[in-house]
């Protein structure tokens, strides 16, 4: 009896504590204690925390140690489901950690971060499953795992090896949490829109209408002609900026191209052959940007 009440109280406390905004603030607090500087989300639309210059450009740079953490709004136009799927979104939040060099007990630190937000490894099934990450448009690759919490992938855990063919030394680690998925576990919710962002505001309040409208835009209404034109324009702009050794603004142009490609892809506006071609175009500029950045800092 007493035991049951304890569990109940614990659940109430968890629920009360772990709305999405407290998951974020607790992760920030935790990683700050590990020596990470807390940064902010980037202001150019992108597909993952990796695209934030704090990862892509700065791990190429010579600031060592480079330990940072930040939230990134990540856009995946093809993953939209008009708000109908209980788990899939065209835009969601990642919590990203970069540490360079990598502490030798990094897995334990990560496990402790989960404990810190209420996912105790002794009470849950946590598995590290081989997953070697690759971003075709960035020409980046790394070795690592996806981390499963009771069957759901909640984190991508990657030792970066190359960015645009550039060998990284020291090797950085990238830890990317899927915030909503962790929240679903902590809040015992089977539908993403039932999550609480704060005690007063739910995910549904914030994003259900967004998902509906963006899905419509991504799949049906985006202006293909304009997107293709923008892609060409930003590609050209990137080359022009590079010829002036402005690698950082040129990098923004690459991120824009990458997102424009994703939009075209979601709209099924490019054939398979063209698709490869677009990917290679983004990859080519990204490589030049990375090289230019290294040579000029």
């Amino acid at each position: 009896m007493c035991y049951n009440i304890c569990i109940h109280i614990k659940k109430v406390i968890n629920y009360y504590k772990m709305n999405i905004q407290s998951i974020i603030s607790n992760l920030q607090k935790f990683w700050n204690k590990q020596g990470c500087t807390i940064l902010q989300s980037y202001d150019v639309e992108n597909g993952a925390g990796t695209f934030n210059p704090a990862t892509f450009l700065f791990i190429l740079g010579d600031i060592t140690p480079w330990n940072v953490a930040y939230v990134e709004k990540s856009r995946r136009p093809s993953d939209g489901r008009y708000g109908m799927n209980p788990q899939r979104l065209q835009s969601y939040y990642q919590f990203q950690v970069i540490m360079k060099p990598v502490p030798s007990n990094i897995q334990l630190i990560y496990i402790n971060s989960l404990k810190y937000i209420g996912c105790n490894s002794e009470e849950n099934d946590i598995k590290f499953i081989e997953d070697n990450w690759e971003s075709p448009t960035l020409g980046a690759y790394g070795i690592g795992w996806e981390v499963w919490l009771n069957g759901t992938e909640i984190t991508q855990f990657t030792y970066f090896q190359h960015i645009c063919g550039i060998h990284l030394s020291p090797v950085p680690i990238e830890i990317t949490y899927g915030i909503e998925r962790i929240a679903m576990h902590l809040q015992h919710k089977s539908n993403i829109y039932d999550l609480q962002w704060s005690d007063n505001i739910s995910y549904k309040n914030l994003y259900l209408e967004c998902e509906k409208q963006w899905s419509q835009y991504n799949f049906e209404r985006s202006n293909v002609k304009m997107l293709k034109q923008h892609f060409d324009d930003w590609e050209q702009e990137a080359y022009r900026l590079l010829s002036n050794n402005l690698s950082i603004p040129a990098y923004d142009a690459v991120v824009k191209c990458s997102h424009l490609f994703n939009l075209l892809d979601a709209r099924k506006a490019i054939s398979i052959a063209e698709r490869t071609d677009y990917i290679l175009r983004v990859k080519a500029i990204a490589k030049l940007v990375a090289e230019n950045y290294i040579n000029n800092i």
Partner: protein
Amino acid sequence: MCKDNKSLLEIGTENLPVSCIDLMLRQMQHFLVNNIQNYGIRYNSFHLYATARKIVLILYSIQYIHKTQSILTLMGKIYTDIINKLSFSTKMVWNESQFVFPRPIRNIVALYNNNVVKFKIANVKSSRYSELNIDTKYKLKIASPEDYISHFRKHRIIIDHTKRYKVLKYLLKNLVSKIGGILINDTKLINELIYLVDYPFPILCSFNEKYLKLPHQIITTCIRKQKCFVISNKKNSLSNLFICVVNNNLHRNHNQDTIRSDYERVIDSLLCDAQSFYTSDIQDKVVIHSVKLKNITYHHKLGSIYDKLNRIQTIANFLNKEFFHTQLSSSLLTRAINLSKTDILSKIVFEYPELQGIIGSIYAYKLGENSDVANSIEQHYWPLANSDKLPISTIAIVIALSDRIDTLVTSFFVGLGASGSKDPYGLRRVCIGFLKIIKKYLLDSNLDYIIKKTFDLISSYINYNNKIAYNVAYEKIIEFFQHRLSTMLVKEGYNLKAINSVMNNSTKTIGEISVIYRKLQALIVFSKNIKHFEYTLLTFKRINNVLKQADKKNINIPEILNQSIFVDGIEQMLYKQIKSFTLNIKDYNNFFDYLIKLSLIINDFFKKIIIMDQDKARQANRLSLLKKAQYIFTTIIDLSFYL
């Protein structure tokens, strides 16, 4: 001193990929069997164990033979070499040591009896402390090698992977029999899970029964994707139960509910998605729209998948006419070919590519297609990797053959062939599949003819008009087939010498597979009669030697014999025996009888006659006889491979 010396090495890593672990154990075993004696030590036995985070080696009864340095120094060197010699395809660096391994090495335990074997690798120093769990700082002190396993057992970690396998199998069986179900066996999943948990603990979960209306292959695929086991009920239909496997630690019994409901939530979401894909595919009648395949590139030099279907159609018509006596109605065949790849367009296959073919058949049935047509969509992909199931209906057989030979021939046309260890387009498997079907259904047909004919049919599609490149590509593909056929025969248990003898690879022809098998069987029977076999080989060797000598002396050996200068009756006899030789052989056992007779005569011939006669004409005549005999030893079945 009669002490039983033991040593222990534990490579403590971050979680290793399952595929790496098997490879690592095999390489270490190889090292122990083949290399360790070079260090001047011997051992009686060894054990290799693995968990996701530990590779463990224990050596028993070590004897140190050449005492040139202290045993601890030597063991350190051996351990360093063992680790350094491991090699992998996926690898990484993680710290300034730039050491390369599949995942970071974080801890090393190395003991010789009670002593620490000191060495350093990848900036990690060996010690007697082992990591207990991924989620604790606490380290386990290992006093000596014999304590190792039992120490971990106390903490609910089974170090021995074979034992984890048995435990998991036992627990699964128990759990399933308790609920009166049947576990759908999945050895691959068991083998994976034993490296994802240290002490397996299965939990029974369920999903909403409404999803049982979905094709069972879809449900199974969704559940296996989450590394869970599927259960059927006694009537052999799928149940709405499944099993996830987690780590059995001390707290587990209290918290099954959270884990179960989380797993159930994931499966529910996958099934929900799958159901909406399925419904939408059925509504769109996706499987009958083969024209849409024009938009899907097969290869930029070879056009779209739709183009491939056209080529398949041409080849299939040829095979149907020449090998199946046009027993297939051309309208059914065409329909089946048109539908064979359309499920690529479906949402289910986009999400679960492994369902390609299976789902096509299901959709075709649903839409009321002829059952042979519907079946052929799935069956034309058979045999799948690691399966011996071959296509059954004639339609499926014809499409399976046409699809594969198109893939092979076109790949060689545009230069995508496999070489060395690389086979990015999986052509080897495609070819083996082709040969297996031929073996089952077209054993007696001439493979060269099939290849040549499809080669010509296809070349008209891809505008291939360079004659030289055409010949090069044709030779390459024949060679490729020969190699695959050899591999297949080796896998069937035939010995390589015998295979090489019957295949006549140098001729760039293959002929009928049935002939190859008949030759092989006769050769094997013959080679088991050791007395006759060796006698024949000896004779063959003598002929070769004599002819080699003649060659050295630049003696010209005429093609045509002159019977009028035969001196001895044995010459006439040999001549008669050679003349009675025919290439047209039905029973190869008779051929070997012939060969023994020939050998007897030749030996007699050697006894009674001096080959290198003073008379140049006679000499040439006798050499010519031997040359003709040599030809007999090498053309039908080339016995040179046994010399």
